[in-house]
């Protein structure tokens, strides 16, 4: 008799389990179809480091970073290198020339952003950080916003990646050439256009 009761108890427990899975079969699905739909990120999301630029005033387009090295010192894994130049603004001493961040080392601890006294770097919201090459993971942020954006655009054209503002040193020369050529083409077009405009 006990045996029978055990068997039926066991059978019943199996039915209860089946009920649970059956219940969820018709519930709303919890997953998100990733490349098309992206979950909204939190405001504090830690992606890659982004450089901030002056938006107004005489030096608009220049980086806010004054190469004070606070982030370099605070980084637990020493993944930041900053080279500096003389700042065009006479009231300030230095301006960052290259801000190099090695993503092979970075552990996204946010300490560099917290250490920054000038709000020169923030944490971006892009999280698709995959690379074909180790060398690609050296991210370089530069002092000139326009130049930085050009690099970004050129790199996007080059790699087809929409999320990558990052250019490896060895690619920079290529990108430079591309930009130069484009720049010359633009000049040429302008030169062609300008006589026509003059005629009007």
């Amino acid at each position: 008799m006990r045996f029978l009761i055990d068997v039926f108890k066991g059978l019943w427990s199996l039915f209860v389990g089946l009920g649970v899975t059956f219940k969820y079969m018709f519930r709303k699905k919890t997953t998100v179809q990733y490349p098309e739909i992206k979950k909204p990120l939190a405001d504090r999301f830690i992606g890659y480091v982004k450089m901030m630029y002056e938006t107004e005033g005489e030096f608009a387009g220049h980086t806010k970073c004054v190469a004070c090295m606070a982030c370099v010192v605070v980084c637990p894994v020493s993944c930041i290198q900053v080279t500096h130049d003389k700042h065009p603004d006479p009231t300030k001493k230095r301006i960052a020339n290259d801000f190099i961040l090695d993503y092979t080392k970075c552990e996204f601890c946010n300490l560099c952003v917290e250490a920054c006294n000038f709000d020169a770097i923030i944490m971006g919201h892009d999280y698709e950080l995959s690379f074909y090459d180790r060398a690609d993971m050296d991210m370089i942020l530069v002092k000139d916003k326009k130049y930085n954006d050009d690099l970004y655009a050129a790199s996007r054209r080059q790699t087809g990646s929409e999320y990558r503002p990052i250019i490896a040193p060895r690619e920079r020369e290529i990108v430079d050439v591309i930009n130069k050529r484009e720049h010359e083409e633009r000049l040429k077009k302008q030169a062609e256009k300008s006589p026509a405009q003059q005629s009007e």
Partner: protein
Amino acid sequence: MSEQLTHSASKKAFRKDIPLIDQIPPRKKHILRGLPESELHVEEFLMNIGPQHPSTHGVLRLVVSMEGEVVKSCEPDLGYLHRTFEKISENRTYQQIVPFTDRMDYLGSMNANWGVAAAVEKLASIEVPERAEYIRVIVAELNRIASHLMWMGAFAADIGALTGFVYGFREREMILDMFEEICGSRLTYGYIRVGGVAEDVTPKFIQMVNDFLKILPDRVTDYHDLITGNVIFIERTRGIGAITLDEAISYDITGPMLRACGLPWDLRKEEPYSLYSKFDFNIPAYFNGDCYDRFRVRMDEIMEAAKIVRQALDGLPEGDYKVKKLARNIKPPVGDVYIRQEAPRGEYGVYMESDGSIKPNRVKYRTPSFTNLSILPLAARGWKIADLIAILGSVDIVLGDVDR
């Protein structure tokens, strides 16, 4: 549930002056030591489980000597994930250590952060604001829930119920969303810092926690229906890998594994650190010390942790979330300190020795996974290979925590 041991929040369960073992309620108990020995002796052979194996939860290698399907001996081979965190910590400033602890127990990062932060605070006599302590308790308990949910899923998958795995992750994801809301990361938080927490909690976070606490009991009931009550699950776990309390204590087992053996020993209750003496919660414990009881202890702990989060959320005071004036490089006076806390996997200890400079002279982490894993050869002997996987799963190891 009648066999569950609990003790009241008002006083400690055990007296310090009497040896612990004498205070345990006496009872007759038999512990199954593996399956019945067979007359038929078959060829003994060695099998290598891991380092890459679906059930080693990382890169753990088990050298298993088997007779047919029965495990004769089992030897864990560690070190595939060794990253010298103790040595790294000795070469960083006190603030810089915190992000590294995320990488040790990556499923209980908040608790790991807290241990280091508490150690440094004690070493440098830093007073932490009350709001910061409340936030710490909230995030640490949420992390305990997340860790146990993840463990539940992985354990169910070890037993063969693949759906439990996904369900566990589904609820864990909600907690990760909360953590993303307050600290921007989903796995390696680095949120609890020396002198407080990195950033204040947001109203949205509190809303999310409230929502989560509302649905959690339903979901836990579902888990009990799907897994705990399932006759196959009970057959697979009850009596399997049982250890006695005495063995557990002599092997220095802590956390849910110890509580499954009948001793409701929890540092949150025994040596209340932070604000734990203020909250009303129970320490679930069961008697048998087998896989099933480890499962039940953890499932009950989820509910107890939810209770603590509820209370802490209700009592969250206004104020600073971190110490306002904290030197960038803390220079604690010469001395040493040992902090121990109750992490999801057991007792997490940090020993830190200061020589007065900005970097610690010596750091030692006592991680629960490592010591808990040491019982595996004893617990798995005599069981079948399927049980070995179940026992390994029930230990709840995180290889980052084992190898450091």
